[in-house]
């Protein structure tokens, strides 16, 4: 596979993304932050991140910002995932397995329903 072919694929992907974006009304920007310190990575943060990205892809969820942060001092609760919807306060989830990560995306990010069982009280 040559680089040129890949960039052409990307061009199509971009056009597709723009079409979907204009078709769907955005309801409050969603941000997902994954803790990627040594503690988080050792506890499975990359698997949580992978699951989040796979869910965004498989469920075609537009307009989500995914970012990462370092250790926030709650190493025993890692992997930690934080979700911010629009102006709402940040919700912090702990011990996020790939399945829980998927649930957080589908329930909290899409339906704005907090997944109470896995919230770390801050």
């Amino acid at each position, binding site marked *: *596979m040559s680089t040129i072919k890949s960039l052409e*694929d*990307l061009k199509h992907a971009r056009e597709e*993304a723009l079409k979907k974006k204009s078709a769907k009304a955005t309801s409050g920007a969603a941000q997902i932050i994954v803790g990627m*310190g040594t503690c988080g990575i050792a506890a499975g943060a990359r698997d949580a991140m992978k699951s989040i*990205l796979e869910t965004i892809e498989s469920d075609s969820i*537009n307009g989500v910002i995914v970012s990462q942060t370092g250790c926030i001092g709650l190493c025993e609760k890692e992997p930690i995932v934080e979700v911010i919807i629009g102006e709402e306060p940040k919700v912090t989830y702990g011990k996020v397995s790939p399945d829980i990560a998927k649930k957080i995306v589908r329930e909290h990010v899409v339906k704005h329903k907090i997944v109470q069982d896995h919230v770390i009280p801050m």
Partner: protein
Amino acid sequence: MRELSLHLLDIAENSIAAGAMNIQISVTEDTRMDLLQMSIEDDGRGMDADTTAKVIDPFVTSRTTRKVGLGIPLLKEAAELCNGGLAIRSQKAVGTVLEVHFQRSHIDRMPLGDLPSTILSLVVANPPVHWVFNYRFDDQSYRFDDAPIKAELDGVAMTEPPVLSCLREMLETGVKEIQQG
């Protein structure tokens, strides 16, 4: 850590924390020399010689003054167990290069693991950084540079589902083709 690609993710985190704008990750597998080598090169704020020594051996100093945790010592230990080693070259205001090598066939050498997931996580979650990933296996090589990708995307986020699929497939295919030879 169970995979070398998880260590790469961890070390790259240090580069991000150091404010790097350009991060290059290289992985080389050389079966003829029985060598597996990885490097992470950044243009972050860099460290003086004292700090560099301390991040390699964290027990020399106290927790409060240490900026970097156990990631580097863990990787160093893993390398030394496999007849390899770890070295850091750093210069203040210039950047840092971390190099680690292993005897590739050593029984205790961790598998490389899921390289595409590591690179995808880093690229997608840190859009301001310019990422370059080089992977060489004997005479085959693969290069992923996100600069032309970002130019092509022209402001469209990498987390948009069709774009995400395209990036994931690009990395997975690129790495798989090299590994199959």
